[in-house]
């Protein structure tokens, strides 16, 4: 994948990320896509395909892409919808380019939690026979994951605050224990917003004179819904996704990239990601953290953007992580980056993208 011809090499050429606008969802999406097109000097006619990621439950619209599609420009366009996550829509977009089916694919993803009964929607993600009758949401399952990680490593829960301090994000919540070991300050804020990323072939980007970030490696993998318990303390599917992505990108040492953006659903997830991404050995995440290597000025900065605590809409975490990394590369803040995207009730879906700027 790192040696694809220019007409099938997927690149990220433009991004737009917007927070709350006060508009309706449809108006907000229109504004986001309009801003991307205007910023890149493009029109809808330049777009071959549109890959949407929408959550019917969070949007309160089914099939959401049918009513939100017009806002992102699907009229008279070939389009596809991912109901699982934005990173999966991005992967579909890249595959369209790699297959030579499209020169440009607009990828759009959003989350408007202010409109939705988020906890009730997340409860619907539980399977109905053994879990839903108990109840649960992402926060509860992230607490179960964090406890499993602490149980595996023997770490003190206070390590979460070390991660927050490293990322330079102000504590937005207090000391209140929400779901042990998670305290309010360990949970990212729930904000409305949307993300748009234009994926194009390297040849098309060059023909338009647009700067391009090459996607040189992609991997994705899914853990078993059923094998939870102690297994929750290890991002097994992230390790598998990383191996795929590194192999395709020809990246023997992930720590050699200029920076990493992870989906830090909680600070404990960032530590689990260090290990699964191969930035350190099993159980060595705290040593890597305390070495300063993942600090903004470290050898391999992780989440120097502040991660999800900077304010990222739910269900758009993954595409946002990619957009943040692409923007940094386009701004000259490094040449190679690694992005980890996660989705699902307990981060069971994991994807990895290896990016390289030209």
């Amino acid at each position: 994948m790192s040696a694809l011809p220019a007409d099938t090499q997927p690149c990220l050429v433009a991004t737009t990320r917007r927070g709350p606008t006060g508009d309706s969802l449809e108006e907000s999406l229109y504004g986001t896509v309009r801003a991307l097109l205007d910023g890149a000097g493009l029109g809808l006619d330049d777009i071959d395909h549109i890959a949407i990621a929408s959550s019917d439950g969070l949007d309160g619209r089914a099939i959401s892409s049918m009513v939100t599609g017009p806002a992102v420009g699907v009229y008279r366009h070939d389009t596809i919808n991912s109901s699982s996550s934005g990173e999966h829509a991005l992967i579909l977009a890249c595959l369209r380019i790699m297959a030579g089916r499209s020169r440009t694919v607009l990828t759009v993803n959003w989350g408007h939690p202010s409109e939705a009964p988020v906890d009730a929607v997340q409860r619907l993600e539980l399977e109905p026979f053994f879990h839903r009758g108990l109840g649960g949401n992402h926060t509860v399952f992230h607490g179960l994951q964090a406890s499993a990680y602490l149980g595996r490593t023997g770490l003190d829960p206070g390590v979460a605050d070390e991660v927050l301090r490293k990322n330079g994000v102000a504590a937005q919540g207090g000391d209140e224990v929400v779901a042990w070991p998670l305290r309010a300050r360990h949970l990212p804020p729930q904000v409305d917003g949307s993300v748009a990323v234009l994926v194009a072939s390297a040849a098309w980007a060059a023909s338009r004179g647009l700067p391009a970030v090459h996607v040189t490696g992609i991997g994705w993998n899914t853990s078993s819904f059923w094998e939870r318990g102690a297994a929750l303390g290890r991002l097994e599917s992230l390790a598998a996704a990383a191996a795929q992505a590194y192999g395709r990108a020809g990246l023997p040492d992930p720590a050699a990239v200029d920076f990493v953006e992870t989906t830090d659903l909680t600070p404990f997830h960032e530590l689990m990601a260090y290990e699964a991404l191969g930035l350190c050995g099993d159980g060595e995440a705290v040593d890597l953290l305390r070495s300063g290597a993942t600090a903004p000025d470290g050898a391999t900065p992780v989440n120097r953007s502040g991660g999800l605590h900077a304010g990222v809409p739910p269900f758009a975490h993954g595409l946002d992580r990619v957009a943040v990394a692409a923007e940094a590369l386009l701004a000259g803040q490094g040449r190679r980056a690694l992005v980890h995207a996660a989705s699902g009730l307990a981060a069971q879906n994991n994807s990895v993208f290896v990016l390289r700027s030209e």
Partner: protein
Amino acid sequence: MTDATRTIEEKWDLTYRHAAGPVVSHFYDRLQSDGVLVGRRCPQCTRVLVPPRSFCDRCYVDTEDWIEVGPEGVVETFTVVYREFQSLPEPPYAMAYVRLDGADTAILNYVRGLDLREPVAAAAALRPGTRARLVVDEPQRRQGRITDFWFELLP
């Protein structure tokens, strides 16, 4: 146009009737009638899956034998919830994945009979590796649901 925009509120009341299938139905039949938990063994990897499934998603083959598990087991992970969430119980409450003796996978349920007022102390009591036991509700109160049983920590 006005600066003050409206919100349109709506409420849905949807009732689903999920087909449980023969394996889940048998699990709840045994729980309701006999007060025991049973799992299914995968003939290929030989793991006993609890909750039971009609197929092993790792080996992708039919499971075959029914195996009674527990009533004791070990906490694999846990949380104690202190914040109130929509559609969830009144906090605080403890939940744990417990791998019952004879099973190879863990099942989630509430842990009761524990003082949850102090989070650090509660977490220490529930730490992974702690032994727990299955407690099944009184026969006349069982409904053939996951809430027919819970866990308590062993002394």
